[in-house]
């Protein structure tokens, strides 16, 4: 049986599909989160160098990965929306941005919490930390540009352009910062050679990465649904939905 995928590029049919998908992803996220945290806090052994403090990687590493990955996904959907003028893609990009910014913030925050016992300081101008901070600025720029524009179609397209410019710039910024850092020789800490991890540690981390994926998908779908309702509020199907809601 051939499935007509394009059917779901219409906000109306996607709305109902997303509604069916969200519980699945929420369920998966909760299960994986519990499993990941259990492995992370009770099964994984204590690190002989870093003691118990290393356990923050079970949150830190997934958050850092998601923060970078979500920016690329956001720029991808924004670019598709700009190129093919598909409304749903742009709505998706808008829905991804806050989650990505949140993960960036968590990565920075947990990194600071880990840095204090390990390096003795909350913050060093390390290449990774600095580029993560700049990534947060890029997310904030994208969101505030979209928030400042009243017309949703213009907001979509303007956001898409700035997201694409950002995605082109991310490698340039990253390498600039890295080179700048090696020039300055400021912080004498190196997090480049990660010590080899015990299998259970790696397992816990991977489960947490999966949990973050599931969480992101669930939240982004939910937010996309809200955006769809808001933008399609003038259409017949939303009016019908509203009537049904009032009857219940």
């Amino acid at each position, binding site marked *: 049986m051939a499935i007509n995928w394009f059917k779901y590029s219409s906000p109306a049919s996607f709305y109902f599909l997303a509604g069916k998908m969200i519980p699945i992803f929420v369920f998966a996220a909760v299960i994986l989160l519990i499993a990941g945290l259990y492995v992370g806090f009770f099964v994984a052994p204590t690190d002989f160098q870093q003691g118990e403090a290393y356990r923050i990687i079970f949150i830190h590493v997934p958050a850092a990965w998601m923060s970078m990955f979500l920016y690329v996904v956001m720029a991808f959907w924004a670019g598709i929306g700009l190129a093919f003028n598909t409304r749903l893609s742009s709505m998706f990009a808008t829905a991804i941005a806050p989650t990505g910014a949140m993960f960036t913030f968590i990565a920075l925050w947990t990194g600071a919490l880990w840095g204090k016992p390990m390096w003795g300081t909350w913050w060093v101008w390390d290449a990774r930390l600095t580029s993560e901070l700049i990534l947060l600025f890029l997310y904030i*720029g994208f969101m505030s540009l979209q928030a400042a524009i009243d017309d949703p179609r213009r907001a979509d397209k*303007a956001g898409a352009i700035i997201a694409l410019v950002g995605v082109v710039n991310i490698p340039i910024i990253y390498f600039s910062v890295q080179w700048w850092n090696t020039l300055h020789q400021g912080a004498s800490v190196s997090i480049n050679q990660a010590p080899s991890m015990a299998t259970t540690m790696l397992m816990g981390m991977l489960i947490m990465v999966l949990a973050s994926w599931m969480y992101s998908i669930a939240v982004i779908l939910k937010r996309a649904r809200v955006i769809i309702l808001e933008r399609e509020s003038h259409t017949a199907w939303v009016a019908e939905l509203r009537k049904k809601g009032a009857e219940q």
Partner: protein
Amino acid sequence: MFGWIIKRDLLLAMRRQSDVLTTLFFFIIVVSLFPLSVGPEMNMLRTMAPGVVWVAALLASMLSLGRMFSNDYLDGTLEQMLLSPQSLSLLVLGKALAHWLVTGVPLVLMAPILGIQYDLPAEALYVLTTTLLLGTPVLSLIGSIGAALTLGLRGGGVLVSLLVLPLYIPVLIFGAGAVEANMAGVGFNAHLSLIGAFLLVSLVFAPWATASSLRVSLE
């Protein structure tokens, strides 16, 4: 057409010289504030100088971005430009170049004098001026994207800084880095080459991105 738009923008700037001077004096004042805030110790000022001058140049160039399109937008000229059969990217390139001639070049000319205030050695002054000469056009080109996107928005001025400043970071790193490398006795050619590369890349891509941003903003 390209030459015409530069000539026109320069003429407009000449008629309103206060705009040009405001940007220049902003640059001078910001640079002069730093010794007042951190103290007049020459050794410290010398190490700070490249960074301070570059950050001030970034801010001055960014503050004048609003003028790049807004007057043409208000009196309808921009709409006519969009309708014209000429390539919009080329027009935008002309406008960015005019913006650089009006705001960037005065900053470049002023920088050595401000460097003397910070007791920079002669060779460092030369490097500072060269990096600014190469780097300020990149600022105008990248800034034109932000200016086009925020055209006619509420609070556009603050928004432009959020959009554009993170994108300025590579130019800042290598611009200030070249001067620091020179003062530390290390070669600075690699820095200059990289800024040159940024200039070439932004010359190709920025007018194109700005043109599509203008189309979005004026839809």
